[in-house]
């Protein structure tokens, strides 16, 4: 029986010798690229927040989900082994919470409950999410006997309490915090693949609050964005303009778009690029390694490559993902507003899926 840890090692960890010789991209250049990308994103998001939001979601929302799917498949063990309970609860939670989240607006459309009950329903869903996360952290903690993860229970209960005080604000916090999870993935990934870059990366992360403060400082005094059409109104509402009326919607949308751009950047550029950049500086990749470096190559996924793996299932999943991305682009082209609403509702699944896979990396 193959364990998760073995798959992780095989799929992502380079040998120390390879890491020592792989210095194709220096740490300074890496840090410079990160800072330049972050500043450029902040500039674009501050300059034309609504337009940039429309364009980035159109172009990158679907593909970044496909890359996440592929990443999760890469991280999936062939046999669950000791992690059986963890993965069963993780997938059950993802399925149930996603179905519940998607069904809420549908049920609300039929006016099954008065408007004033909506915050209570929202708080109930958030509570289930927090309890699920607490349970996952607890299960993961059991696999780490050297660490005490019991704090997860009081933490999740404390967050539940805050959630019941202001459920709308709690949901808004998820909107803003979710993009940052990608940065945590990158941190864990760098720790395994490019430890030499980790320090520079964390220094760059320290600049992120400065950028956010700078954006708020510049934009909170600007007039609110003109959300006079349905699309722009939805974008400002998504960023919390209604919940935070004392903050300029320009600042809110700009910050949200900036974080989304970082999120897309990590999943679409940073994480896929790290593997090819880790090739030995002395020469070329071996044919097998080059083959594995291609993102569309199914055999690069351990779950498909393993003798006891599921190559057909992985191929179908990735192909179906490509199909969904094409459908999403088609939908955006035909009716952007509706497709955007549907996308951000269904996309809760990928938000939820990030939690167990991130926990497995910690």
């Amino acid at each position, binding site marked *: 029986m193959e364990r998760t840890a073995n798959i992780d090692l095989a799929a992502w960890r380079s040998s120390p010798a390879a890491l020592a010789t792989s210095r194709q991209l220096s740490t300074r250049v890496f840090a410079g690229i990160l*800072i330049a990308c972050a*500043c450029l994103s902040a*500039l674009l998001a501050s300059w034309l927040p609504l337009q940039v939001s429309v364009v980035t979601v159109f172009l990158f929302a679907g593909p970044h989900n496909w890359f996440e799917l592929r990443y999760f498949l890469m991280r999936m063990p062939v046999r669950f082994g000791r992690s059986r309970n963890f993965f069963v609860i993780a997938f059950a939670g993802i399925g149930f919470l996603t179905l519940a989240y998607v069904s809420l607006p549908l049920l609300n459309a039929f006016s099954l409950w008065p408007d004033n009950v909506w*915050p209570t329903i929202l708080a109930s869903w958030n509570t289930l999410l927090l309890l699920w996360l607490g349970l996952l952290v607890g299960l993961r903690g059991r696999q780490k006997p050297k660490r005490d993860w019991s704090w997860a229970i*009081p933490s999740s209960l*404390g967050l539940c309490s805050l*959630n*019941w*005080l*202001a459920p709308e604000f709690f949901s808004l916090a998820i909107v803003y915090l979710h993009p940052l999870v990608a940065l945590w993935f990158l941190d864990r990934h760098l720790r395994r693949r490019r430890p030499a870059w980790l320090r520079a990366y964390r220094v760059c992360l320290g600049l992120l609050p400065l950028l956010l403060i700078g954006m708020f400082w510049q934009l909170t005094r600007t007039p609110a964005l003109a959300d006079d059409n349905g699309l722009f109104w939805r974008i400002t509402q998504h960023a919390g303009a209604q919940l935070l009326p004392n903050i300029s919607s320009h600042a809110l949308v700009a910050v949200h778009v900036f974080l989304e751009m970082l999120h897309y950047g990590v999943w679409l550029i940073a994480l896929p690029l790290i593997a090819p950049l880790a090739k030995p500086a002395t020469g070329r990749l071996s044919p097998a390694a080059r083959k594995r470096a291609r993102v569309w190559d199914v055999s690069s996924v351990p779950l498909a490559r393993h003798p006891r793996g599921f190559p057909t299932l992985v191929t179908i999943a990735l192909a179906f993902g490509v199909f969904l991305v094409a459908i999403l682009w088609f939908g955006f082209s035909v009716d952007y507003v509706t497709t955007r609403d549907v996308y951000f509702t269904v996309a809760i699944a990928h938000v939820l899926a990030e939690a167990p896979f991130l926990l497995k990396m910690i």
Partner: protein
Amino acid sequence: MKPFFSLCILCLLLAAAMPTYGDIARRSPSPEKPRIVLHTSLTIVPDSKAYEGRLQISQGSLQELRAALANTPTNESMAQRIAHSSTRTMLAGLFMFLSLSFAGVWLARSVQARGQKAVAALLIGTAIVGAAAIIARANAGPPGSYLWRKLPQNLSKGAPTYGGIDIEIVPDANEGPGIKLIIPMRPER
């Protein structure tokens, strides 16, 4: 590291040079005059047996008030939102209680003996400060009649009087239309 820092400074400068129109100050809001939404009658009744001040609003006046407020934009604060949902407040309290209980058990198990004393002192201190805050801010103050006792003198002086009040909705048949303010007043001996 010099080129790296130069690049950092350049990028920060670029970020700081974000839209210049961001510096245009907003117009200072002019103070809004209070708007009369309803005219009704008010009866003030001293009551020697009352413990707390009561504002009785008849059903009819309440409906008129609701109708008048229907067109008034509302912008509830966070405290108002919480105060208007007792179920959510109770659940928040329940989860907070559970959270603190589990946190206490976790701290007691994880921290060493010497640390336990410090944690216990911290928790007791927090509880005392919390209780003091509750007493200061909530309904643990003196009885309503005490706060209202200087109302006659203050009225003759033209000075304001501060006191708590309960708002009641009473049927029209009992008291007739309008609003009645019952002030707890103890007769002077």
